């Protein structure tokens, strides 16, 4: 039986209070690459999964090990989907969580992508590596409301062809005529017939009207910095470029200060922040 979970200030309330993780069961697990897996989760108690905005994240708890901030990578109103890369102890345990096992979830947290800013404009999505999962819910939303937006240009870069996530889905996106989806890798063998080069090498090919474009960028900080610079050079205004920042998190609700980035707390004010506001803290000297 399914029941609405009580909420506190928009946060889901678990049995032990608003910031305690709610147990979810892993319904399915897909290995995207050798160290990245996508998990579909459902509340153990059969409650409804809280809806989320594209770009928000949850704190996932690997019981007995620790918590990690992980972006929501599925459709905003569908099942809860997360894509996790095995790096440290926590993310390794989450990556390996088999179907039927339990993980703790608290969230969703953060502000998400400012979708409304894109209405009536061209939209550029630039993703590097694991930057694609947080952008996927946004892409679903853009495509669901396709007529509200101008051109949609996606540029996705990964280290090698083997490190691309959502491979099958990308082929479907690439086949669509109402969206342009470019994929590039840093290096490849002979079995790769696609583009090779960093994300910024594909941007000159992207078709958009710079003055009337909103760009959403997610990836390693270096990639985001150079992508933002390339977009500025093309004429996209700094206020129309949004980056999803990553900082170590503990509380995820603006109490502990762990995630501070300049004057912002990434968990509370972000993770999506306008380039115009954070450029000085990205090591960019001029704007």
């Amino acid at each position, binding site marked *: 039986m399914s029941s609405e979970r009580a909420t506190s200030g928009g946060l889901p309330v678990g049995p032990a209070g608003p910031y305690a993780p709610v147990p979810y069961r892993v319904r399915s697990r897909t290995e995207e690459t050798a160290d990245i897996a996508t998990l579909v989760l459902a509340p153990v108690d059969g409650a409804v999964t809280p809806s989320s905005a594209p770009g928000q994240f949850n704190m996932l708890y690997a019981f007995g090990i620790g918590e990690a901030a992980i972006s929501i990578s599925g459709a905003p109103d569908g099942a809860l989907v997360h894509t996790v890369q095995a790096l440290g102890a926590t993310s390794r345990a989450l990556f390996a969580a088999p179907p039927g096992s339990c993980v703790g979830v608290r969230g969703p947290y953060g502000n998400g992508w400012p979708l409304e800013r894109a209405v009536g404009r061209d939209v550029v999505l630039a993703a*590097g590596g694991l930057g694609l999962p947080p952008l996927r819910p946004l892409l679903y939303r853009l495509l669901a409301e396709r007529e509200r937006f101008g051109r949609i240009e996606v540029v996705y870069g990964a280290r090698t062809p083997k490190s691309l996530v959502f491979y099958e889905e990308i082929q479907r996106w690439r086949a669509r005529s109402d969206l342009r989806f470019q994929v*590039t890798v*840093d*290096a*490849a*063998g*002979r079995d*790769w*017939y*696609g*583009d*090779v*080069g*960093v994300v*910024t*090498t594909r941007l000159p*090919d992207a078709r958009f009207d710079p003055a009337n474009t909103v760009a959403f960028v997610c990836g*390693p900080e*270096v*990639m985001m910095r*150079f992508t933002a610079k390339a977009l500025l050079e093309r004429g996209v205004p700094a206020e129309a470029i949004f980056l999803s920042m990553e900082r170590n998190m503990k509380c995820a609700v603006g109490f502990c200060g762990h995630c501070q980035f300049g004057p912002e707390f990434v968990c509370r004010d972000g993770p999506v922040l306008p380039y115009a506001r954070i450029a000085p803290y990205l090591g960019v000297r001029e704007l």
Partner: protein
Amino acid sequence: MSTESPTARIARLEAHEFFRGLPAGLVRAAAGAAALRSYRVGEFLLREGRDAEEFIAVEQGKVALEVFAADRARLTVQTVGPGEVLGWSWLLSPHRWTLDAIASKPTQVVAVNAAVLRERLAAHPEEGYAFLLRLLPVLAGRLHGLRVQLLEADVL
């Protein structure tokens, strides 16, 4: 391109992103020393260590630039597409290619005789300067890509 009229050859180069807006005398000279070539998928356009005798501008298709180390598989480090050019080894002594280039799609290029082009650029410094200003961003782009990769790999 030998079957094309001189006017058509010039128009072809003028339409190429790299040549667009370069001094007309230079474009005319380059067109006079140019050949049009086509490559099937998997065919080499140039090989590492061979003499760099042509300046190659890609018109259509896609070319993979590969590095090769004896103990490793071949690695594509960059792809080059329409409107782009293949390197600068033809301009710098000892005029030898430092990469392999292989067509990863059916490809058509304009290949300009490098000796003719070098002479022209040396004899007309203003044209040479304009040409270098076009070529340097190609080099800068490659360096930039490498820098991003190094920083992302956290090796610094």
